[in-house]
């Protein structure tokens, strides 16, 4: 195990493994009891009943930071001359409000706050990618070894929650559930089913209509399901790729002074470029979520 951590592929694998907590499966030490997985295979064998502690920790921490700062500004919000924090928060809120107004025409008080939460939260989670890839995992290794008495090589730690498909799918599935809920609430169960089965192929006569139902349903269902999948995979894919490049650049640091300096320049350049991706992906995710909500509120 210690050997694996020193090779390039071991290093990469280590960086791509979440800190998984769950019931330790058969065939491993302490099988049957609850604990952290000691290897990627063990984490995989834990199955569904396990949780990525690092993903949850960072996403909740960042979300709480976001809510705390914004709540502080909102609590002392004054209609007079705003202070620095209020100014910043108002700037963000107005930006979100303008984008939501641009793509959402219905009346639903949940959409704009949802967009704000999505944008800032995802942005913060994405920004964790700019922290040099080894810093926080090293700290976690030291903490894990000294506080919890774990082997530092087995303390897996991924600091960017959006590189965990669980996080992105978690959000997109929640949005998917909301779009289904509001579709049924606004259009009724019949209207929702009609939207799934009566288009894109339409017909005047009843038999042909019935004939079209399975075809329409197949097409619309694929479209419906593809929304949350594409939404989450887009975010996950972009951030995962970005993180992977940071890891590959970090590998260069151990290859001599020349390559190390080159790696430093590369890391800086990629980080600058990555800021764009980080912002863009947060914005795209938010905008698409709003658009899906808009589609749920209006029949086309």
């Amino acid at each position, binding site marked *: 195990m210690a050997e694996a951590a020193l090779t390039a592929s071991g290093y990469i694998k280590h960086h791509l493994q979440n800190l998984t907590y769950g019931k330790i499966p058969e065939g491993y030490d302490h099988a049957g009891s609850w604990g952290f997985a000691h290897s990627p295979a063990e984490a995989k064998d*834990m199955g569904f009943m*396990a949780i*990525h502690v690092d993903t949850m920790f960072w996403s*909740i921490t960042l979300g709480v930071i976001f809510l705390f700062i*914004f709540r502080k500004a909102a609590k002392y*919000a004054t*209609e007079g001359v705003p202070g620095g924090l*209020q100014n910043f928060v108002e700037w963000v809120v107005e930006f979100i409000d303008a984008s939501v107004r641009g793509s959402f025409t219905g009346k639903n008080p949940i959409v704009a706050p949802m967009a704000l939460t999505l944008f800032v939260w995802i942005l913060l989670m994405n920004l964790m990618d700019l922290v040099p890839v080894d810093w926080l995992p090293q700290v976690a290794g030291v903490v894990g070894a000294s506080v919890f008495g774990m082997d530092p090589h087995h303390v897996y730690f991924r600091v960017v929650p959006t590189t965990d*498909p*669980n996080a992105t799918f978690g959000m997109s599935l929640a949005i998917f559930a909301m779009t289904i809920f509001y579709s049924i609430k606004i259009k009724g169960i019949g209207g929702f089913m009609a939207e799934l089965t009566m288009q894109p192929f339409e017909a005047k006569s009843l038999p042909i209509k019935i004939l079209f139902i399975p075809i329409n349903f197949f097409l619309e269902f694929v479209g419906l399901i593809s929304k949350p999948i594409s939404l989450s995979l887009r975010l996950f894919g972009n951030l995962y790729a970005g993180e992977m490049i940071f890891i590959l650049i970090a590998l260069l640091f151990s290859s001599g002074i020349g390559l190390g300096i080159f790696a430093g320049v590369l890391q800086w350049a990629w980080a600058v470029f990555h800021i764009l991706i980080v912002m863009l992906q947060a914005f795209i995710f938010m905008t698409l979520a709003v658009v899906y909500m808009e589609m749920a509120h209006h029949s086309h």
Partner: protein
Amino acid sequence: MNINLTLIGQSITFALFVWFCMRFIWPPVMGALEARRKQIADGLAAAERGQHEQELAEKRAAEHIKEAKGQASEIVTQAQKRASEIVEEAKGDAKTEADRIVTGANAEIEQEINRAREHLRKEVVGLAIAGAEKVLKREVDKGNHAATLDDLAAQL
């Protein structure tokens, strides 16, 4: 990369965050923004109203000035008229007074002349009598001829 409970945990976390944001963050911030927008709009409207009022006031002031100017010129005209009237009046008065003084003086002169004439007459009479007395010392009795002499004196 395993799909596990994190998925559900993340969904719940997301839902809670959205709820918190919707309940405690969005309304106050939007409220403050809306209130400020209204305040600014009110301020702008008030400024416009003030400007309008100022314009009206200026117009009113100009009207007042015009009116006052008219009144002033009218007063000046009246005063000039009155002044010339007073001058004319004074002229008339002075003329009358002068006439009166002249008449008075003339009358006094007349009186003086008469008095002097009377005096002279008396003197002449006295002298004539004295002369006649000297001439007619004995023949003329003062008492007998007094009536005659008086008659003579009256004729002088």
